């Protein structure tokens, strides 16, 4: 059959009920500043690790808020904790502790 370059995308519907909100709740408790993030992406733009890999804190926070945490572990491990994002963040999010807290939550829930 001729390939016209079309494909069927996988379903992007977000099912909040079936998603895993444990990391989000743990973060809200231990580093509540992550909730004021308005996803501007300054952190990702300045990220030292972002030069070498596709780490994006903006994306991670969004995914955690939605409860889609399957990729979080491999992402959180890439952070060098250099702190550029924290100085760049216009909302004063304690980004370094957001990363550490995510890592702690992953260990706690054995994810």
């Amino acid at each position: 059959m001729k390939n016209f370059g079309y494909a069927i995308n996988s379903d992007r519907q977000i099912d909040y009920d079936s998603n895993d909100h444990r990391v989000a709740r743990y973060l809200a408790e231990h580093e509540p500043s992550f909730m004021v993030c308005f996803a501007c992406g300054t952190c990702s733009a300045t990220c030292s690790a972002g030069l070498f890999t596709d780490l994006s804190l903006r994306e991670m926070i969004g995914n955690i808020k939605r409860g889609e945490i399957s990729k979080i572990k491999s992402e959180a491990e890439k952070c060098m904790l250099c702190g550029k994002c924290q100085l760049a963040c216009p909302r004063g999010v304690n980004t370094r502790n957001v990363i550490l807290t995510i890592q702690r939550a992953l260990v706690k829930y054995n994810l």
Partner: protein
Amino acid sequence: MTFDFFVLPFFLGLITLLVILAVKYSRWIREFDPADKALIKKNIFTTKSLRAAGEVFMESLLHRKMFRKNALLGYMHMSFAMGWFLLIVCGNLESRIYSKVHLNPPYYPIFLKFFVHDHRVLAHELLSIPGVFRVLMDAILLMILSGLALALFKRASSRWFGMRKASKHSLYDRIAITTLWLIFPLRLLAESFTAATYEGGSFLTNSFGSFLGSFLPAETLAYPAWWAYSLALGGFFVSLPYSRFMHIPTEIMLIFFRHYGVKPSLHFNHYSNFEIQSCPKCGVCIDACPVHTDANRDGIPPAYFLRSLRDRQPMPSSTFDCLLCGRCESYCPVGININAMRLSQRVEFSAHLNGSFRYLNGATARPASVAYFAGCMTHLTPSIKKSMIMIFKEGGVEFNFIDEEGSVCCGRPLWMAGKEKQARELMEHNKKLIESTGCTTLVLSCPICLKVFREEYGMKMEILHHSQFILRMIDQGKLRLSKHGLRVAFHDPCELGRGSGIYEEPRKVIRNFAELVAAGEERNMSVCCGGSLGSTGIDAERRDGVSHQALETLMQNRPDAIVTACPLCKKTLQKDSPVVVSDISELTVLALETKKIEAAATMN
């Protein structure tokens, strides 16, 4: 008569104390790292032991550093420590003169006045040896009692002692301090009652005894008073190993180990026990801690943090909220390695956290004799790296800007978060990159990088902060600078000053082009800018509290600009500073003669 049942509480208390100390210390020392044990063995019979003994005398007895902090505070500590020491030494000498025996039971000198009651000392007898001792012993007792009076006064008003806040005490501390405070008044009572009964004593015990005897039955009360004195001594000895007074014997051990060259490791070990038990909880660190005083966070000052380690209950908040600015270490009269203790706990808390930098590939760099590594923070303050490039070019230095396209973090932030393994991975990467240039000098703009490059990378080349490199270029006549007439205050970055001991070089550079005015707190007393990567816990608002305090001290003499030598300090301070905050490299470029000529040319 050389025995009475009342000596038992003291005697048994003393034996209990000695046994507990011997058991604890021998267990800790047995578990020391083999390298540390070798150091102790190598140095124990050298002059290092003598020097350590000298320091014990100056610090543990005379409390020199406490005197420097505040005269009243120093006198209070000295009167207790030196006074008690002299009481023991003179008491022993006195008892030997009386008994003419060289070996007395240990309680004999302590309770000498009970066992030996001479008649009243006549005026001409005061010049005899026993008479001199009697006056001396009363004088020493008076000195200790004056210290006790000061200690009670300090409870009510610590301000007079140069301290805004004093430390809070645990239950064991309270028991120990109550018995300690009772010891000397009870000794006074016991000796005075006995002096009144037998007409003994000297100016203090004799006159106080006859005053008491004028309305109290001195002879009946003397014996119970000796019992009470002995009980207070015994009680103090038994509670000592479980209270903050454990610092008395432990600090002496620590001073000796330090002179032998033993250093704390990144991991909590048995040597750390000596460090944490040496804390007297004097509370001098409380006012020094910017997180406590300016960011209103409790439990952070070492007095509390080290106590939590002694109780084996370190809290994540007091472990991670600290800025690791190191100001408490500058104040600590015992010289405890507090940052090392805090780091060792972070390592324990973070041991199970993952992280990996497999995505980094082995990069190499072009060969050059001078390599410049800007670091992450300098990339956030691009004017610093631009200034550095100009300075290199102006001085005709062949250099390679190895992280021009962006840095891999130096590893210090991960190291300070307790993630040693991940930090080492980044270090390996950077080390390979830097060594591939074959450089003989590595210049860094960020003091955070500087500290870890110097201490953990193990590289052979010379590692300089840019303030040192600029000074060298000025000294070699490679940079021609002219004064621009600014009055500036210099902010000592934590990692550059306290962290790496670089205080003079930046000041010398600044004097080449500006007038340096004093800041409120300088050098090792400098206040952290608040931006430190040492803390992961405290939030932006609390950091602002620290920044404001730093700015207040910097603005004390109303400078035209604030100069620092750290991109992170610059970025943090400039947020709320009433004047311009510049890095030392930026002001150097402004002072370059050639730049002025260029600027004049463009204006014409």
